[in-house]
């Protein structure tokens, strides 16, 4: 029995985004608006950069608006005209990433116009983009979401979030299941997962926090991390990736969504987030932090693991 999730507010949100984008572009407040537009398949959605008020009504918001648009503000930034502010449509989870990027000097708040979206959830998979959002089809990250309503944005459509049915916390459950295993069992689980990896680096490409111009894993002088698409190299890559995202990852789960081999990548990120919350009471939030958990310290930090 699948419980439907009420997304009726998305129509009002779409209208509000269109009107706001039209206003912003025609008044010249922003040079472009990055948002979602309908794709060619029925129900599909793709990211779009709108620079003309006349086509602002292309912008939509639906349960298929899965992409974290923050990534276009880092890697693709050079392609977006630099003059003026950039408007961007953000869900709560995307906003956490954006805020994280501000904390790492990659973005400046004053250069952005944030259009926040009150979000009831998006689809886990867009293979069938016109699927109805239900407790079964909703993305796992949305089940554990604590940021349905973005704060600190320049504009948020005035809608009331519908109450949602209680949803199962899939990540938490899976982490607990793995934690209960022996190290050898966990190793064989991940070994199997990482063996699937084809080193396409889609996870890196889609991650807003993988903004390095040259990835450590691409370096060959010295070769710190084996780069072959073999089990050894794959494992190294995923360990390094999880470590580099620890204390930074905002939980948008895009890595997991884009992985063509269905490796549960966000599990690693969630696990690290959980540990850092327990150790240092840190979690990604909607407010800019001056320092992250691994770039700060206190003299009282836990050292029970140190002899």
């Amino acid at each position: 029995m699948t419980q439907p999730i009420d997304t009726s507010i998305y129509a009002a949100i779409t209208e509000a985004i269109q009107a706001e984008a039209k206003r912003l572009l025609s008044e010249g407040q922003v040079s472009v608006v990055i948002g979602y537009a309908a794709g060619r398949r029925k129900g599909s959605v793709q990211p779009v950069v709108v620079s003309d008020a006349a086509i602002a009504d292309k912008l939509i918001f639906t349960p298929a608006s899965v992409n974290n648009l923050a990534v276009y503000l880092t890697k693709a930034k050079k392609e977006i005209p630099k003059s003026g502010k950039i408007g961007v449509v953000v869900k709560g989870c995307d906003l956490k990433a954006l805020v994280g990027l501000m904390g790492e000097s990659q973005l400046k708040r004053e250069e952005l116009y944030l259009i926040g979206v009150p979000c009831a959830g998006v689809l886990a998979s867009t293979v069938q983009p016109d699927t109805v959002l239900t407790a079964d089809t909703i993305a796992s990250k949305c089940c554990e979401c604590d940021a349905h309503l973005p704060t600190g944005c320049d504009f948020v459509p005035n809608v009331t979030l519908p109450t949602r049915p209680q949803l199962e916390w899939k990540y938490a459950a899976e982490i607990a299941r793995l934690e209960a295993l022996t190290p050898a069992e966990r190793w064989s689980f991940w070994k199997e997962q990482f063996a699937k990896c084809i080193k396409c680096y889609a996870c890196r490409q889609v991650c807003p926090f993988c903004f390095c111009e040259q990835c450590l894993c691409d370096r060959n002088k010295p070769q710190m991390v084996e780069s072959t698409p073999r089990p050894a190299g794959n494992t190294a890559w995923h360990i390094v990736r999880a470590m580099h995202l620890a204390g930074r990852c905002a939980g948008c789960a895009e890595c997991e969504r884009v992985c063509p081999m269905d490796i549960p990548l966000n599990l690693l990120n969630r696990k690290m987030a959980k540990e850092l919350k327990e150790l240092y009471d840190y979690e990604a939030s909607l407010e800019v932090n001056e320092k992250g958990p691994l770039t700060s310290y206190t003299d009282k930090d836990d050292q029970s693991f140190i002899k």
Partner: protein
Amino acid sequence: MSRIGVFICHCGENISRTVDVERVALEVGKMPGVAFSTDYKYMCSDPGQNLLKKAIQEQKLTHVVVAACSPRMHEKTFRKAVEAAGLNPYLCEMANIREHCSWVHENKEEATAKAIEIVGMMVERVKKNRSLPAITVPVTKRALIIGGGIAGIQAALDIADCGHEVILVEREPSIGGHMAQLSETFPTLDCSQCIMTPKMVDVANHPKIKLYTHSEIELVEGYIGNFQVTIKKKARSVDEDKCTGCGVCMTKCPQKKIPNKFDQNIGMRTAIYVPFPQAVPNTPVIDRENCTMFKTGKCGVCQKVCGPGAVDFEQQDQLIVEAVGAIVVATGFDLYTINEKPKGSAIKGYGEFGHGKIPDVIDGMTFERLASASGPTGGKILRPSDGKEPKQIVFIQCIGSRAREKGISYCSKVCCMYTAKHTMLYHHKVHDGQAYVFFMDARTPGKSYDEFWRRSIEEEEAVYIRGMVSRLYQKGDKIVVMGSDIAVGVQVEIEADMVVLATAVMPQKGADTLAQKLGISYDKYHFYSEAHAKLRPVECATAGIYLAGACQGPKDIPETVSQASAAAAKVMTLFSKDQLEREPIVARVREAGCVGCFACKKVCAYGAVEEKEIRDRQGNLIKVVAYVNPGVCGGCGTCQATCPSKSVELDGYTDEQIVAMIEAL
């Protein structure tokens, strides 16, 4: 292709007893890149070093590994030898086969195998070593001293006497600090003013000392050898160049009832004033908050009577920038005010002791002013409430200090001694009076200190009661002191005429703000932190900044003066060279890879990472990257471990070098 020379030391028999050195030399000789390999009895001896030098030249070696003792022992020796032979010293590495091998293993087979691996690791490492040029930083030979108390004065005089220029900045209108307020000093009872004022005059007359009083530090930029300091010179309303210090203005000022902070607000002063007669400089300052002219726009008497026309109501605050090479922080202390709970502080007040409410409960510094011959009572001990001579006086020690529950757990160090001194001064001035002291412990370590304390009891008849006071209250014109005598185990009540509280020594208010400007660290009480508690007690962890006096922790005068001279010596060591040379183990940013996330800046304990703009030829900003100031970098490499793209590298410990070692395993 590298031509590596490997030299295996026998260290007499220290190594060769458990390590087959010949076999090590033989095996290592087969390693790729090794052009020369030998063993020798004592590599560190002159013949050993000559062997090394000769081999470098004859074999045209590009890198050297000396397998011998710990690099902590002889790395400098061999690097120097390598340099003498014409190679960059950082192309030489040591493999530790003594402390880490021959001395800790007995099995010769195992030890030899381990030694070969250790040397092999270092061979792989040294291949990736680069020549590192020595880093030099120019030194501006001028010192800034913050704070004009005895610590600042001593440091200033020492440095200036050595021929270097000194900028001395003092917040108050006169230098002198707390020591100028004291009456007589322990353990010799010489008059504080008598020993202090000549030094103050020396400062004023010294050709190398530039004095900024009534001034504060606004901004500090730069690093060791090269600081730029912005000083805010607050408007004095009196032209220092024109003023002759005749003092007529002060005699004519109609505002005469302003409590004088220098006299702990017991004595009064005028609105145009010098804090005390011996002030340096002897130029008055107008207290704009209390001046009739500034309040109402009418008066100007001082301006009318001033012969040289020095009074200037229009004077503005000035910002002055000075370039200095070293900074001595000597901001001193403040006393704990027990009737108030400082805002935002963990310190809890002492409402139960009535200080500030009962007029005859005073603190130690106020007693100093009462006992001072130049104080508001002319040296007579008189009660602030009615001017009567107190016949029973109670001194209470450890007010705030050593009281964890009140927020301070440290000992203020000087109170035991100055309370003993107070009982003596009191007995000298009020012959028929009786002094009582409540104390927890008498702490008197110091030359002639315990003798002094004993004298207060044995000769000056002070009654010491071991125990604390629970409450004070006014009863008629007496103050009832309720306490306990734990030596006897009874409750004590004394009806006193006056109570003196030995309040805790605390850092100056605003010590934290100044520390943030300077980039130095401080403890939870805001005392400044030294670089090492034992071995670097006068240096801050931030290079080029030194500490003197009670800003680092409670101190008495002899200790303060010693530390001030020590700080001065450190400054002079720095100034003895034109260029500062440092080990080139510093981090460098690879700008092409840096994306400016500044994780490195967040973790740098030295504040060595700066933001640098990269612009194209038209001046358009391309990106902002990190820049590590080699003069400031401490060389720990935390930045590199933190940098996600490894765009910052620590010279001497690059990823290439370390990975080469791991891969050699």
